[in-house]
Every structure is written in structure tokens, then in C-alpha cells.
């Protein structure tokens, strides 16, 4: 192989991954270009973690889909990051508001409850949920599954959906949550899907996950259609998470 050919092969292999491979070096240090891109991506990740759902976004989403806005026990972004367990439960005020809003639903059963949490990247929610959510609604409507109003949680973690799902008495709860940003993507969304959610009994392995939802990964619309199929199967089998996987 000539050097030119090795270069061509190398750049192809590099193109297969967004990871920082074969970036070169200058002596024992990274090249300026590699260093700058690292610092840039790191800053973007930090911004994502510190980002909050904008009021405009939340208001617009509520207007379009009749969402209920809530907050976890964390008081603000710093509190949420410093004391992670607080993100797992709703604060009392939200709990009360949610309970009263749910009064009218309890006469009929809800199949799927959809929770939207900022998690560690509110940017991910703002960027992806607008395309993903309507796909879910269309898909569940096609399957004649009943969904409740979507619940937005500020400073929410994955497990907060157990509490909300249980409150709804939903068969399945979906938590659309901003992923912990990496150095190659700060706007990735995940969907955690749990059958029969319960505040105490549900554990991590009960959840089925669809991750890496963003423009450069699984497009949000396609992820929506995929989640619908997963929920259909979860309802058919009556399990989620590793037990669903074990069914083959």
C-alpha cells in the first residue's frame, strides 16, 4: 500500500465513527485542531447538562398536546445535579396537581402514559420530542390504545416515570428523557419503556430502552414508530426489560 492509499483507507475508517480516533499529535500533545474540537464539544456537553426547558417550548407543547407540567423534588438545576435522588420523585405540589388532573381519567383505563423529562439534556427534548411525540400518538391511535395527557417533568430522572405511571394506573409508561451528553453528541434522547410501573417494585432491569434518538442517530420519527411496535409487543407479552428480551 502506498501512503496515499493508507490515508484513504484510514479516513474511511475514521468516517465510520464520531469517536476521536486517529486525530494525530504534535510531540506528546494533541494538535491544536484536536484540542479545540475537544474543548468545543466539552463545552457543548456542559451547556446541555445545565440547560433548562425553555418556557416558550413548554408552553407551546402544552398548547398543542394538553400537557401537564410538573417538577421533581429538586428545586433547581444545581440541586438536581448535586442531589440526583431528588430527580426520581415529583414534588408535593406537582403530585397534588397531577392527582386532581387525573380525576377525570380514572373512570377509564389508560394504556400508555407518556412522560417527558429534561434529564441531563433539555436540548435533546427540545430538539427531538416535537417529531417523536406525534408519531407515538398516531401509532397508539392506530392500535386503539388509550394514552393519557403527556406529563412534562422538570429536573426529572428515569425513575420519576414509575411514580407517574402508577398514578395514572397505566399499563405502560414511556419516559422520553435527555441523555447524559457525550463528547460526540449533546442532543441524544432515550425512551425508557416500563410495563406495569410501580414506585417501589419497578427496578432498572424492568425497562426496555431505545437510545441514541437524534438526527445523527435514529431519527425521532422512526424512533416513534419503533417505540409503538415495542409497546405493542410489551402489552402482548405482559413484560418489559430483560424479561422481554429473554422471551426471544
Amino acid at each position, binding site marked *: *500500500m502506498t501512503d496515499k*492509499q493508507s490515508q*484513504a*483507507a*484510514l479516513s*474511511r*475508517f475514521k468516517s465510520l465513527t464520531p469517536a476521536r480516533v486517529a486525530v494525530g499529535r504534535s510531540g506528546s500533545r494533541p494538535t491544536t485542531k484536536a484540542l479545540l474540537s475537544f474543548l468545543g464539544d466539552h463545552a457543548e456537553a456542559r451547556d446541555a447538562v445545565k440547560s433548562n426547558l425553555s418556557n416558550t417550548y413548554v408552553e407551546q407543547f402544552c398548547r398543542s398536546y394538553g400537557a401537564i407540567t410538573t417538577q421533581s423534588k429538586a428545586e433547581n438545576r444545581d440541586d438536581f445535579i448535586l442531589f440526583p435522588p431528588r430527580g426520581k420523585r415529583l414534588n408535593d405540589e406537582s403530585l397534588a396537581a397531577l392527582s386532581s388532573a387525573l380525576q377525570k381519567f380514572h373512570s377509564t383505563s389508560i394504556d400508555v402514559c407518556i412522560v417527558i423529562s429534561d434529564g441531563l439534556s433539555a436540548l435533546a427534548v427540545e430538539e427531538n420530542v*416535537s*417529531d*417523536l411525540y*406525534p*408519531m407515538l400518538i*398516531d*401509532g397508539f*391511535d*392506530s392500535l386503539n390504545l388509550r394514552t393519557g395527557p403527556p406529563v412534562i417533568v422538570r429536573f426529572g430522572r428515569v425513575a420519576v416515570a414509575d411514580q407517574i405511571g402508577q398514578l395514572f394506573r397505566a399499563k405502560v409508561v414511556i419516559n422520553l428523557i435527555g441523555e447524559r451528553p457525550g463528547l460526540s453528541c449533546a442532543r441524544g434522547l*432515550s425512551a425508557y419503556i416500563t410495563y406495569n410501573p410501580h414506585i417501589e417494585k419497578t427496578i432498572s432491569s424492568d425497562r426496555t*430502552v*431505545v*437510545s*441514541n434518538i437524534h*438526527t*445523527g442517530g*435514529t*431519527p*425521532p*420519527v*422512526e*424512533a*416513534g*414508530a*419503533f417505540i*409503538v*411496535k*415495542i409497546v405493542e*409487543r410489551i402489552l402482548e407479552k405482559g413484560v418489559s426489560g430483560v424479561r422481554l*428480551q429473554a422471551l*426471544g
Partner: protein
Amino acid sequence: MQTENCLLSVGIDIGTTTTHLVVTSLKFGNLARPTQINEIGLTDKKVLFQSPIYQTPLNEDGSIDAGAVAALISQAYTQAAREANLDMQSVQTGAVIITGESARARNAQALLKEIADLAGEFVVESAGPGLESILCARGSGAQALSKEQGLTVLNVDIGGGTSNFALVQNGLVTETAAMAIGGKAIKFAHGKLSHLSSTASYFCHLLELDLRPGLTLSESDQKLKTLARKMANEIAHLCSAGQKTSDRKREQAIDPDRSIWLTDPLKLKTSPDMLLFSGGVAQLMQDLPQSADRYQDFGVYLASALIEILQDKNIDFSLAPDAIRATVLGAGMHTLQLSGSTVGLQGENLPLRNAPIIKIDISATKDLFIDIQKALVQKDLDWSATAVVLALSGLHSRQLQYGRIKALAGDLAAAHEQSNACEPLIVVIDQDIAMALGLLLKRLMPDKRIISVDGIAVRDGDYLDIGKPLHSNTFSDNCTQTLPVVVKTLIFYKN
């Protein structure tokens, strides 16, 4: 679990010279990481049975004896069942590939009729030179090698009647071509020359060699060697085109001789890193027989001339393992090369064969219905009678908003309705949104059958075969259904 993820596949190659069959076990798995949408792909293949290499039976007039071929295949089936202890009833997929000279129209028609029963569920194709070149590159291992090592590989498959070239870059076949040079250029019988192909006659004329049926091998030996060197030179010249050889002048002097090409001559825009030979003649190059007339043809002459010339020119080359079976191995894998996710589909109307593909650029379209109608008229297709594949392209990955996809689904459903088109509605899209598009379409046309596929590359004018869905219990997760899909590029021989 192991066996559940395997499919039994049969590949049958009916070529100019030889006919043979392989039974392969294809293993599938999910290539995607956990928590990602499934991506079912071939993870492993194991050859379970190889038939002997039969001479393709011919009629008096040189056409293929289709009845005898069918008999050979059923004989091979019996043998496979007995020797490899296989239940041939459980063969789920496969391909019959009619290659080289056999692919000429009259032969192909007759063959298709005879083997239809045997291979009812199979994809049956008469491979044009383009497809055959691709299959060879797949079966010889050139494609895998190129993909894994980032190499540009030129695969040269020299069979009985044709030589097929395929340039593979990063696992993708970027150029194909075929020329009418092969081991059966001259046939021998009882120590004498018995038949010269038109290419052989052409070269004899060019070189002023007196070779004709009836001459003995011993008196023609030198002339045969000269002819073989000329032919080998034609091939070696191509292989060296990209490499830095010392005598540039000489190369420029050799203009591609169009009359021996079955396709447009091969043009190498990129120089290959590696040269790989497959096919019957490559098999001979590997293990050169002592006697020149071992196979009653010119193959041994051609093989030894090739080795000599490549060595003279200092051109490195490799020989494919199992060279002669490259096409048939490629064919067995071929059917399941591609798969996509689908929605709203019932298996009973599959397989679907030869659905013509029309390509539509949706970034440029103002009225999808009109654009589709234009394309249909241009290709003289009647959508109400023929299921047409709409291959949509032009959406950027930043344009996959819900609203846009929903509008697209609306336009598609309206166009299907207005065209009074037949079922199923088949859509292939070049972005990863087939499931979403299928779901939205299904909502708009709940009574219609819809096949929505992504992850495959098609070209305008290609044809699509869609097989029955693979058994849902075959895979660990049946959230996405996988269909065997074959894209056929039908480029027929010039005559």
C-alpha cells in the same frame, strides 16, 4: 437458538461450461447495538454441501439442454439430502443464477421453465454481466476483504465463456464489466480442436493464426500458446492499468478492443490495491494440470499464459479460495443481502417478482402524483396492473420532521388512489424512516397492503424481488419484520 437464526440456502449456477450447486447455512443476527433499532444482517455462512461440478449439458445446436440441467439439479438435491443429511424440504431461500453465455435469451427462457418447480420459492435470475461481476466479487471474498481492510480490490472472474471484472472499493462494487474471454474459447475433442468461439476466431484472424477445428493439439500447441498469451495480455493489461508499470508507452498503445467486450470496456478510475482471480480458470491457475487437454478446452493454456504474463509484468495477484465456486457462493448469499423493516404486510401475496423501480426525487417534486405519472409513462408502465416500486430520494437527514413525513405519506396515498394503482404500495426510501412512513401510510389507507423499506440502494430502472417474510421466530426480536429483498440490475448482453 443457534439453529433458529440459521437459514438453509441453495445457490445454483448454470454457466456456459459448468453447472453446480451449493447448500449454505446462512446465520443471521442483529448487527445493531442493544437499545437500537434492529438491523438484521448476515453474520456467518457455512457451506454444507457442494455438488460436483457438472458439464452444462448442451443440445446439438449449442443451446442449453434445459431438461438435462433440471435432471442434474434434482440429482444434486438427492445427493445433498443423502450425503450432508439435509432436509431439502426445509430450504428457505436461494437463487438460481444463469450466467455467461447461458444467460442469452433463448437459453434462459427454457431453463426458467424447466426448473420452476424445483426452485419455485427462489429468486431466478439470468445474470447480466453487471450482476454476475457483482456476485463473483461477493463469492470470491473480494467484497469482504475490501470492506474489512479498506482496500480497493479488482476481482477478475474468468469462467468458460466470459471474464467478469468488478472493482470493489470499501466493500462497494463501483465498476463492473465483462469480456468474452474464457476457458471455452476453444474446445478440444479426441486430441483435436473441435470448436472455436467467435472471440477465438477473432483473435486468430487478428494474429493471423491458423487454428480451426480438426487440427491436432500437438501441431497447434505453439499457436494455442500464442493465442493464450494474446488473451491473457488483454486481461493483464487491464489489471495493470492502475499500477505503476515501467512501460507506459506500450500500455497507451493498446487501445481497449471493443469487439471483445460484452459491456462497455472496464475503466479504472482508481487503481486497485489488490488483484483477486476467481472462476474456473483461476482454479486452474492454482493447480495447473499436467496435461493441457485435461478439461477438453483451452482453459489450461489460458491459465498458464496468465501466470506467465502477470509474473513478467511483475503484477501481484491472489487467487480466491474455492475459485470456481465464487459465483454460486455469491448467489446463495445474494438473496438475503438486503433487508428492511416493513409495515402493514401480509405474507400470502409474496413473493413478488420483478417489480419495476421508478426513482423519484422528492426534494424537487411539486406534485408527487404528476411526477409519478410522468415516470410511469416514460417507462410505459401501468400502475393499475403492475406493482411498481417507488424509490424516494432527496430528503436530507435534517428534513425528517414529522410534518414533512406525514405530508409525504398523504401525497403518496393520494397518488396511489388517483392512479387507481394496484396493491401492494411499495415504497423504498433512502433515509432511515421506513417504519414511520409505513405507519403513517397505513393510517391513511388501512385496507391496503403496504411495503415500506429502507436501508437498500436502488437505481432507476432496477427491478425488485421481495420474498416471503423470514419466520418471525427466527430473530430474537420481531418488532421489525425482515424481508429478503433482491435488487436486480438487469443489464443484458449486447446481443
